């Protein structure tokens, strides 16, 4: 047991997966000698060699498209897309290829591929680097979408993703990479894909968040308690498939729900969560489901992003609003 950051937990998971299974290889831009621009693959080249830690040409479609072939051919590729916003370059190889090979081949072939990508705002990046476009992929059958918010989950979910027989998009909250440490078991463990986590128990309002918004939601819960409101926080952890059981049970208990995400509002995953809640827990609802999200603009320039991003104040306001509806 050691106290690790998210980025260290990811690094440890990759190393353990490569140690255990010679089929696992890591590929992407700057993942070799540089150890990744965030150091997620730090030290792997030295330990596992350049056959298994591959600096690819700067071409996202080639990274994912060749990984599809590698996976069908018996390898277990873990591809890194340097920033989630650059994944637009390989939408086709993900959406029409990785996600559909099993379906197209009627199960003869499958694609055990993990695509890792850092995402989200709060770190003052240049344009495109901070996009949160998870909804595109949650809308794509055949691929799973996973995002941790803690070091413990980062390791356990990544190991589960690498073991998964289907493609998994593993998006990592950039601003949490080194935000805090927690105890992470040294040994191999998996956090199951498809299961949400109750980050904080509460009675009156359910706040549903994922990735970088989980600490924001937790902080909002602490503030709300100061004014006497008991908030339950759910960290979804898996965005596709959604853990509707956990969400439904919580809302049936609390009767109120707020969904928080960084991604832009319209067509976002918050709408899917809200729709699922009203389908499954309509009679428990005391108030409309509210969303606290990014605005319907491209991710803004750094001088504006703090105002643009959902923060504790906005989440507390939404909690107050559903309480006093």
């Amino acid at each position, binding site marked *: 047991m050691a106290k690790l950051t998210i980025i260290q937990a990811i690094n440890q998971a990759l190393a353990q997966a490569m140690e255990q299974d010679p089929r696992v290889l890591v590929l992407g831009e700057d993942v070799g000698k540089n150890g990744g621009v965030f150091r997620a693959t730090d030290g792997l080249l030295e330990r596992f060699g350049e056959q298994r830690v591959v600096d690819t040409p700067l071409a996202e479609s080639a990274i994912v498209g060749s990984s599809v072939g590698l996976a069908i051919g018996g*390898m277990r590729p873990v591809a890194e897309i340097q920033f989630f916003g650059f994944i637009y370059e390989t939408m086709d190889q993900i959406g029409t290829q990785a996600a559909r090979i099993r379906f197209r081949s009627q199960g003869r072939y499958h694609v055990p591929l993990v695509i890792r990508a850092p995402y989200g705002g709060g770190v003052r990046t240049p344009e495109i680097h901070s996009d949160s476009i998870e909804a595109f992929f949650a809308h794509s059958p055949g691929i799973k979408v996973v995002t941790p918010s803690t070091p413990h989950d980062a390791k356990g979910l990544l190991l589960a993703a690498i073991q998964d027989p289907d493609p998994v998009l593993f998006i990592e909250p950039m601003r949490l990479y080194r935000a805090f440490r927690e105890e992470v078991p040294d040994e191999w463990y998996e956090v199951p894909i498809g299961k949400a986590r109750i980050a904080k128990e509460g009675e009156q309002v359910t706040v549903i968040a994922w990735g970088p918004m989980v600490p924001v939601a937790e902080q909002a819960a602490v503030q709300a308690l100061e004014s006497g409101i008991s908030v339950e926080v759910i960290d979804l952890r898996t965005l596709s498939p959604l853990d509707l059981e956990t969400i439904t049970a919580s809302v049936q208990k609390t009767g109120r729900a707020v969904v928080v995400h960084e991604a832009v509002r319209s067509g976002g995953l918050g709408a899917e969560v809200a729709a699922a809640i009203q389908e499954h827990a309509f009679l428990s609802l005391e108030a409309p489901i509210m969303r606290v999200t990014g605005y319907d603009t491209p991710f803004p320039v750094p001088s504006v992003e703090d105002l643009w991003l959902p923060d504790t104040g906005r989440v507390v306001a939404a909690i107050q609003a559903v309480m006093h509806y």
Partner: protein
Amino acid sequence: MDIAQEFPIQRVIDEEGQLVGDRSGVSDEQVREFYRWLVTLRTLDQRAWNLQRQGRIGTYPPFSGQEATQIGAVAALQKDDWICGSYRDWAALSYAGVPLSYPLLNSMGHAVSGRIPDGVNALPVQVVIAAQTLHAVGLAWSSALQNQGRVALTFFGDGATSQGDFHESLNLASVVKAPVVFLCQNNQWAISVPIARQMNSQTIAQRALAYNIEGIRVDGNDILAVYQTLREVVGRVREGRGPALIEAVTYRLGAHTTADDPTRYRPSEEEQRLSHGEPVARLRRYMLGNGLLTEDENKQVEEAAKATVEEAVQAAENFPKGSPEEVFDHVYAELTPQLRQQRAEFQQRIQEGGTARG
């Protein structure tokens, strides 16, 4: 510098059926075997066109004119090698061992056509232009990493050479020295767009220069040239000398698909001129002129082809319909809770007599 001269078209038999090259790598029996396959697949292709016109199958993309390239190339592979083709490459898949009923089943909307039978190492036909070239790189690369000695052969058309994935795959394959053969079937047309609008380069093969890999042009209507060239190239690629780009110069004899009308965009003069050297007639001329085939034997080959194709049509038309709810079963290894629920709803709807058209 005349680039086209740097990439001369390899040829063994000319349009008139005259031997103009060395065919020492192909036995007489293999020539006859190639001819039987050419005739069979041409017969299948024409039959498929007619079946579509009769409403018995849906949209179909004919491969007539490209049989020599597809058969000749697959013949140069070993059984374990990978084949990654597009929707126009059913001749390659058929020669590799996929039942002749599969292209028909594909156009009839049966999902089984995507499940390439075990023992044939091919991916399902690809619809997204050039996407399969990257899969071939990955498969070849995985073979190298696992010391399997397998080569990946990818088929694509001239239109595909405009796609980013094509260039990304050539570059990546060259950098990692993946044992992959890129085989472009330059049939001169990407639906209605001629090669001169597709690129301002003189040849497709010359693109190999930029990626520092081997580039070769071959007469794609000459099965002996395709086979002999590919056999050499596949051998070199298998030895680990890096990928290769082959441009097979051919001609799409017919429409893009059964939904296309080439008279809208293609001069009939060109069709007549470029159809003359098509692969089936060309090999027939050669064989008839060189004692490898008599008119009687030719009739027997054509009759046998018709019978084989008739069997394929029967097999396709008698193919049992799968259960519609199987649509849910290959999205993931296991049904997600959402899919389980939707599958049950779907099943319920079928039991209540619901149909796709309501």
